[in-house]
Structures are given as structure tokens and as C-alpha cells.
């Protein structure tokens, strides 16, 4: 009798376990199978999910993450089989260097022709030949400022070192973007691996630190919208949204150049549904979808077909501005550790 009870209990436990694991597992399959997408949170119009399912017959399952660093171990350790992922430039390079990405079959992605030419040189840097990734969104870092709170023209990173804006500046709370600013001010490459330059950049940042109101990434635009600071280093993707809520805000790409970032779609080597993944990328690159996403996200989408639609000039910078820009490169964990050491020194100072 006792044995039966034990068996029943074990069965119940096993059932509850399968129930638990079942939550993240497969639901009903689409006619052509299921496609697993791993993407930044809120990074495409959710209504597109149904459109895609109807157009292709795949059942779509989307999982979300906040940062590249959160996504990386999941893809690396293959803890979940994703067919297509979204990742930033340097992370694509890192995944590529570890041979984790599959080559895209361009025959299945005819809409790849829609990719704007001016984004390609930047993509070539981290993904030579663009064999493994295609762009979803792109943008630059620049200074967002409040017209009513600044004197004179804002056109250089040096303004962040201007004493008159003490306690009025929101700096980015992320290591590589912080160093990007110092590198551009001092005329270095933002991907420098020279420790002397790194040390000089840290000194420049430490000199700037007393002028900072706060260090913020996502909340920077709210601080600007609320008139709590005169300027913030922010990505161009936030410009349309911020201007809508506060008409005094302006955005400038400093004359020394800046970082161009690209968030891309890529297919992990472990993908079970590579054709579905290519169908997804192709879908995302189509004119209608790019248009929907641009209106939803207000981030620039490097798609030729909708270039006219983007009427905010900073979202589509001219050639001479782009010529001074760089893309963030993956420097390897040893160099990252050195950066991290200096960054902590800066944060502790």
C-alpha cells in the first residue's frame, strides 16, 4: 500500500514538473512548424506577429531579453533552441568569433536588397561580407539638449566638459559609451586597446565627473522630458519620442564623430528552423513591415524603401557625418577586463 502511495506521489510530482516545464514549451504548431525568436523587449510592433504567422504559416514564439549580455550565455550554452536572434554589432562579432552563427542564405531573403547602402560599411566591420547578419535598426549617439537651458551652439563633445553646465549633464551609465565620448574628444579610436590612451580617457572622464547630474541609460530621456537637466548623451532613436513630449529638446551629432550602432538579426548555428528564420528576416526587411516598425519604435530602420518616410534628419545622417563615425567592436575578454578596471576607477573616484 505504501509503495502505491509513493508511486502516486512520484507521479504527481513528475506531472507537476512537466506542467512547469510545459509553460515554456511548444504550444500548438503552425502548419509549417514553429519559429523561435529571441529579441530585445518591445523591439517590433507586436501586431506583426499575427501578420507573419498568416503570411508564412509558421507559429511564432517570441522570447525577450533586456541586454546583449543576458542573451549571450543563452545562445552560447544553447539552453534554448532559438532560430533567430536580435543582437547588437559588437555582440554579433563576439558570437561570430566563437563560431555560433550560421550563414544566411540570401536566396531566401530577397528583401536584403532593401538594406540601405550607408549602413553597410559599418556592418562590414563586425560581420565581413554581411554573411551572418542583417540590420533591424540603427542609430548614433549624440547630445540631446534643451534649447531653453543652454547658451550658444551645442556641436561638440567638449560641451560636456563646460563648467557652466555643472550638475546639468546626464552621462551614459555604460562603459563603452562613456569611453566612446572620451575617445572622440581626445581624437582616439573608440575601439582603442592602448592602455596609455585608456588611462588618458579615464582621466578626462574623471575631470568631467563633477559636472554630471547623473549617469543614466534608459531613464535619461525621462530626465530630459521632465526638464531636470540641460543635456544628456542619448541614442538618436529616442529623439522623435522625446520631442513629442517636450518641444524644447534638440539632438545633435557632435562634430568629432560618434558611435554608429546597429542591431541585427542573426541565425544561431543551432537553429532548428533555418528557413523559417530567413523568412522572418525577409519579412522584417520588407517595406510594409519596416514602415510599421518605424512608426511603432521611432528608431531609424535602414531600409531604402522607407527612407523618405524618416523626416527627422538626425536619424539619417549624411555621408560626411558618418565618415567620422565608428562602430563598437568586440575587443575580447582580456581587453574588456582592462576597460572594466579603469571604468571602476572612474566610477569610484
Amino acid at each position, binding site marked *: 500500500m505504501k509503495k502505491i502511495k509513493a508511486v502516486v506521489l512520484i507521479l504527481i510530482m513528475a506531472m507537476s514538473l512537466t506542467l512547469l516545464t510545459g509553460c515554456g514549451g511548444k504550444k500548438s504548431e503552425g502548419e509549417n512548424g514553429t519559429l523561435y525568436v529571441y529579441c530585445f523587449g518591445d523591439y517590433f510592433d507586436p501586431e506583426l506577429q499575427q501578420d507573419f504567422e498568416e503570411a508564412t504559416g509558421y507559429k511564432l514564439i517570441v522570447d525577450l531579453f533586456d541586454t546583449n549580455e*543576458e542573451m549571450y550565455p543563452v545562445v552560447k550554452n544553447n539552453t534554448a533552441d532559438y532560430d533567430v536572434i536580435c543582437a547588437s554589432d559588437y555582440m554579433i562579432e563576439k558570437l561570430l568569433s566563437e563560431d555560433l552563427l550560421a550563414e544566411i542564405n540570401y536566396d531566401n531573403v530577397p528583401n536584403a536588397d532593401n538594406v540601405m547602402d550607408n549602413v553597410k560599411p559599418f556592418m562590414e566591420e563586425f560581420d565581413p561580407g554581411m554573411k551572418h547578419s542583417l540590420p533591424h535598426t540603427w542609430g548614433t549617439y549624440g547630445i540631446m539638449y534643451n534649447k531653453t537651458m543652454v547658451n550658444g551652439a551645442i556641436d561638440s563633445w567638449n560641451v560636456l566638459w563646460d563648467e557652466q553646465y555643472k550638475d546639468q549633464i546626464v*552621462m551614459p551609465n555604460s562603459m563603452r559609451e562613456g569611453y566612446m565620448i572620451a575617445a572622440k574628444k581626445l581624437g582616439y579610436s573608440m575601439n582603442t586597446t592602448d592602455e596609455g590612451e585608456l588611462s588618458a580617457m579615464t582621466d578626462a572622464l574623471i575631470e568631467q565627473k563633477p559636472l554630471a547630474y547623473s549617469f543614466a541609460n534608459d*531613464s535619461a530621456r525621462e530626465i530630459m522630458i521632465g526638464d531636470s537637466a540641460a543635456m544628456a548623451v542619448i541614442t538618436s532613436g529616442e529623439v522623435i519620442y522625446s520631442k513629442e513630449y517636450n518641444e524644447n529638446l534638440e539632438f545633435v551629432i557632435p562634430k568629432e564623430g560618434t558611435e554608429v550602432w546597429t542591431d541585427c538579426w542573426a541565425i544561431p548555428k543551432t537553429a532548428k528552423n533555418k528557413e523559417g528564420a530567413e523568412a522572418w528576416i525577409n519579412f522584417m526587411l520588407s517595406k510594409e513591415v519596416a514602415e510599421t516598425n518605424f512608426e511603432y519604435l521611432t528608431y531609424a530602420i535602414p531600409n531604402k524603401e522607407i527612407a523618405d518616410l524618416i523626416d527627422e534628419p538626425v536619424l539619417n545622417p549624411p555621408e560626411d557625418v558618418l565618415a567620422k563615425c565608428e562602430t563598437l567592436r568586440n575587443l575580447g575578454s582580456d581587453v574588456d577586463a582592462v576597460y572594466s578596471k579603469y571604468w*571602476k576607477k572612474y566610477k569610484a573616484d
Partner: protein
Amino acid sequence: MSKKIFSGPFLLFIICGTIVPLGVITFYGITDRSGAFTLENITAITTGEHMEALLLALGLALISTVICLVIAFPLGLILKDSKLGKKGFMVFIFILPMWMNFLLRTMAWQVLLERNGIINQVLGLIGLPDLNIINTPTAVVLGMVYDYLPFMILPIYNALIKIDKNVIEAAYDLGAGYRQVLQKIIIPLSVPGIVSGVTMVFVPSLTTFAVSNMLGGGKVNLIGNIIEQEFTASSNWNLGAGLSLVMMIFIVISMAFIEKFDRNGEGNII
């Protein structure tokens, strides 16, 4: 046999939820990226930036704990003596904020305290000077106190209402004044609750990174922020795990502290 089987789920929980993660953290903490044994991640706590962040975290956690205690103990006494017959409701009011996610509550403080935030707008309207504490350690302490105060109130209140009224009355009968009753009866008998409350405020305050990130504006760099940074932006899990192990020492110390005072477990919330 049949009773033992019911402990199965708990055993499973302890193994999966405590022992395995602890093992993994320890493994990461005492190895480097290549997997070779090293103690560098642990001794890294002694380097300048890490030590500074640890001391700052200890200081702010201590201040928050003292403030919580100073607020919670008299409050516990008031609740205990209240004749309203609605003690349950009063306690309910104090734990009500806990029903909301603590990140949301902290974010609310950010909106309130921002330079041009709601508090300063109201102050401006009635002609008072601005309150400029956002992005300073003061704001972080405020956030910690607000977030963790219920964890101090509940155990203290629980310990206080368990004190036998007859003991207090007997003391008054024998000629003790209120001060003496407080010093010799109420405080000693509520020690388990105080110790439990202190631990429950001190430990999360010591390890927090969310509060210091949001209310410190990235300017208040606590040891929790450094560990978080190592796990996320720097992708150096080994150093992050090593520093976390050091933090665990502080947790173990406070656990030993609780064990010493709170043998009967009287201060537990439940």
C-alpha cells in the same frame, strides 16, 4: 516512510534552489575564465575600488538599519498599546506598499525627487527652496528605508505583542515607572524581534544595486553595483561570483548573530 516522502519537494527545493546555485557560484568564484583554480576573484575585494564600494555599502546599510529601527520600535509600541482594536488594520496599512513591486516603488521616488520632479514643483509653488537630494547617498538611504521598513516593523511588532501583559502589570505593581518597564521588560523581551528586523533590513540594504542605481543616479557606487556590473556589462562572471562569495560572509555573520539572540525564533514574521 510515508511521512518522509512529503519532505521530497522541500528537499528538491533545497537542492535545486540553494545547494546547486551555491556550488555554481563557488565554482565560478574560485576559477578564472579558463577554468583554472585561483583565489584572485576573492582577494580582489581588497583592491581600492572594491573596498571603497564595500565600505560605502556597509555605511549606508548601517545608517538605513538604524533609521528603520528608530522608526519601527516606537511604532511597534504604539501599535501594541493602541486601544483602537484595529491593530490588524494598522499593521495592514504598513505592509500595504509591499504589495507593489519594489522596483516600481523605487522608480516612484526617482520621479518624485528628480530636480524638476513633483516634490520640487510643489515646494516651488509654495515658495520653499528646492530639495536636491536625488543622485546622492541621502536619496539611496531614503529609498532603502522606504523599501525595507516593513521588514523591521513586522518582527518587532510580533515580538512586542507576544509579551505577557501580566509581566508588565506586575512590574508596575512593584513600583516600576514607565521608563523602567521599557528598559527592563519590554526592550529585553523584544530583542529577538529587533535582531530579526535588523538582519532583514541590513542584508538586503548591503547587497542592493537597484536602489543605488535608480536613486543614486549612477554616482553612488555600492558593492552590489560592482557585482552587477561584472555579471552584465563586463561579462566577468568569475570576478562577480568571487565578490558575491565575500558578501556571503557578511550574511553568514548576521545569521550567526540572529542564531545567538533569537533561539526561540520568536521574532519570525509568521
